[in-house]
Structure formats: structure tokens, C-alpha cells
């Protein structure tokens, strides 16, 4: 490439474009490495641990915590949701039943579905139930 005033600018752009093009051929959109997986898993587990703390704390107004009736989140059956929830009269997702429990036995206020606390609780409950096959709708 012959140098002149304009050429370095143009050539630089062409050079960068080539480099980028080359890079983009080797890393596909959505590609991820083992390192990514491990990092993301750790991210998830921090939320699971947050959930574990919340699950074992008084989320309502009467000092009662979820684990008093659900040690290790047992008998919460996250794998059966969505399902017809007798106590609510319609088909619901797990977070709605968590809120039912917060409002009723724990005499507290419900959490929004996208509240970080709810995400943490759901992560912990589901994690403690890992490996169990899905059974949506099961009572």
C-alpha cells in the first residue's frame, strides 16, 4: 500500500476491518469458554447462598422462617410448577406460592416476581431439588 495523506486513514480503517473480520470468524456470537461457565456458576451460587440465608430468616412479621416447615427446602416441590394451586384457586408459578407462604404462615408482605430476594429464594429452593425430573401440574 502506497503512502499518501489520505491513504493511512483509509488503510487503517481497512486494516482494522480486516482484523475485526478475522476475529469475528474465530469467536461466534454466543460462544463461551469453560472459564465463562465456571464464572457464571459461581455467580449463580452466590445467589443460591443469598437465598439460603433468606430462606432461614424471618421474612414476615412473626419471626417464623421458611425452614421451620421446610428444612433444606424439602416439600416445596419446585419441579411441579406451574400447577393448579389449591390455596390460590388457579394455575400458578412457584413464586406465587412462595408469596402465599410469606403472606400466610409468615404473616408478611409479598415480594414482586422480579425482586432479587425472590430470585434468590427460588434459586435456593430449586438448587436443593436439583436432579428431580420435572412434573408440572402434579399436586
Amino acid at each position: 500500500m502506497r503512502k499518501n495523506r489520505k491513504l493511512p486513514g483509509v488503510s487503517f480503517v481497512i486494516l482494522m476491518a480486516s482484523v475485526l473480520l478475522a476475529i469475528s470468524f474465530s469467536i461466534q456470537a454466543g460462544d463461551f469458554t469453560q472459564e465463562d461457565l465456571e464464572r457464571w456458576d459461581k455467580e449463580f451460587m452466590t445467589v443460591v447462598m443469598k437465598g439460603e440465608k433468606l430462606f432461614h430468616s424471618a421474612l414476615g412479621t412473626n419471626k417464623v422462617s421458611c425452614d421451620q416447615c421446610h428444612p433444606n427446602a424439602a416439600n416445596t416441590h419446585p419441579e411441579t410448577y406451574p400447577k393448579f394451586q389449591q390455596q390460590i384457586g388457579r394455575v400458578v408459578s412457584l413464586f406465587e406460592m412462595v408469596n402465599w407462604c410469606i403472606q400466610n404462615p409468615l404473616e408478611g408482605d409479598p415480594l414482586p416476581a422480579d425482586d432479587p430476594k425472590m430470585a434468590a429464594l427460588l434459586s435456593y429452593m430449586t438448587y436443593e431439588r436439583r436432579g428431580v425430573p420435572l412434573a408440572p401440574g402434579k399436586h
Partner: protein
Amino acid sequence: MKTTARYFKGTFRTGIIAATFAACVAFAAPVGLPPVPVPTDNLITPEKVKLGDKLFHDTRFSSTEEVSCATCHDRKKGFADSLPVSEGIKSLKGTRNAPTVINSAYLRTQFWDGREPTLESQSAQPFLNPVEMGLKDHEPILKIVRTDPEYAELFKNVFGKTGDQITMVEVQKALATFQRTLIGGNSPFDRYYFEGEKEAMSPAAIRGLDIYIGQGRCVSCHLIEQTQALFTDNRFHMIGVSANQMPQDLDELLAAVEDVKKKGTDIAVLSNPKTSSLGRYAVTRDLTDIGAFKTPTLRNIELTAPYMHDGSHKTLEEVVRFYNNGGRLNETDPLPELLSGGIRPLNLTEKQQADLVEFLKALTSPQFVQK
């Protein structure tokens, strides 16, 4: 309400298949309710309904010839009687509030304590109760239905029976069949909830529905489900109504049980308030059932004041306040110790309670409203 009279032209003799098909078609459920359960040995026909209607309104089947089923189950009063406790012959007072007959076809047991399993078996009891129709036995009824020419024709057409062939079995079947046609769905709630008519309920009633399912905790016993709403779970719960009238100690309990054993449940519970307060316990003798009464449907509840098994709650506002205080009218009353685990204070505001009442008023089926 679609009655067989309008849609079914024929008699029982046209064949079981046709009758069954017609029954299913004619009794396709209204909005919000499942198909009416009909026993296979007592299918619905227009003639049978007509016969049952006539029997239901016949005051001759009482010792004073003044009391019929319709006396306490008056079509103009939501098929109840607007009294706290019903009054039979000579205005004799019983101990219990007349339940509505509307939608009783969906109940798995009859009476507040479920002591009779079907509409058929229930219908025979009030005739023999001293504070209801006051008959010693069913003979006066049988005499009339066997000899009265109008009845003779009807029984012949419906059951193919005449004279002494007619028994209480046929009478009970006809009465039950008439009651089975008293079905009420299609309320403003049904149109809102199951048909998506947003304008069918007022904003207050819509808020009330939210409370009903949520903070009010009503939905667990007074069922609303995904495609139907019976408003009853058909179970028995001790919710604390008139708990102070229940036997207070072992001696009183033993006396009440003796009463039941001596007189028979039907007569004992309607003659003595303390015995009546036993509720389902009188039938099962299970302490979990003490003071427990059947969850009534809330459909048409606006029409059937006063409320509870002894009519002790005059208005819906009172009822809601009772539940809000966790099974007592006043917060300062003691909590009944044998209360069902489902009853607890609700912490509803005055506005929430008012909204809940508005929702309850949206459960009325238009065909039963008296203009």
C-alpha cells in the same frame, strides 16, 4: 335457567338413551358451574320436575296442613326463609338457619352437618321433625299421593305406579329431581371471571375478588377454581360461630351426645341449641368435627340473609367482620380453642371489608332475584 320443560318434549318412556342425552343437553351447566350430578336411577324429566314442584309446595304434608318444604325454602326468598332459624308448624322454632336449595344439587351431603348423603334421602326427614312438619310417620303423605287424582296421574306418568305401588321412594325421587333443577350460575362474577366481561363487576367488586383470593383467605373453603366455582369445598369446618353455646366441659358434651343417641340426630339437633352446636360431631363423633358445619355455597348469598348455621349474623358486613377478627364478632371475644386451622385474623381495612362485601353481592344469579 334452561328447564327441561322448554327443551325436552317427551316422557320417560321415550327411552333411557334419549332421556340421558336430553338430560345432559338440557342440563348443560351454566357459566361457572360444572354439569349437575344426576344419579342414574333418578334421571330428570319435565313430568318428574312438575311432580316434585307440586310435592314441594304441598302444605297438606304437615300435621297442621300449613307447612310445606316451600315454607322454609321460599322461591321469593332465595329458596330460604329470611329467618335466623326456621319455624315449622305452629311457628315452632328450630335451631338452624334454612340453607338455600339453589345449587344444592352440587353438594355431596345435605343439611348443615351432612347427616344425609343425597337430596333424595334428605327430603324425607323434615316431614317427621316435631318442629318442622310434625308428622308421626309418612303415612299421611302416602295417603294423599295415592288418592288425590292429580297426583295419581302424575305418579302414573312419571313412575308407572298407581295406588299402593307409590311409596316414599317415588316421592323422594320427585322432590329431589325438582330441587336438582334449581341451579344458579351466570352471575356477574361468572361473566367477569369465566367469560372475560370486564364490565360485569364493579371496581369495588373486582377489588373484593382480589381480597377473596388473597388476604381474605376465602378461596380455600369457598372454592373458585380454574374453570368453575362451586364456592364450597363440601367439607366441614369449625369456624367459631356461637362457640360460647357449645358444651363447655366433658359433662356437657356427654349430655349432648346422650341427647343425640336418645332422640336421633335429626330431632335432637333441631330441638336443643346445645346439641345443635355439636355440628358434624353429632354425626361422626370425631373430636376434629366438634362444632364443625358444612361450608355453604356463597352463590346467591345476597338473597339468603341472615347467615351461619344459626342465623346469628344478620348482614354480610357482620360476616366479614367475624372472619376478619379470626372467628369472633368482636376482637375482644376469646378465641374458640377448637377453631379450624384455616380461621385466623385477616387484618383487613374497613375499605377492604366493604369491597369484599361488594364482591359477595356479585354472586347472585339473575333468575333468582325478586323484582
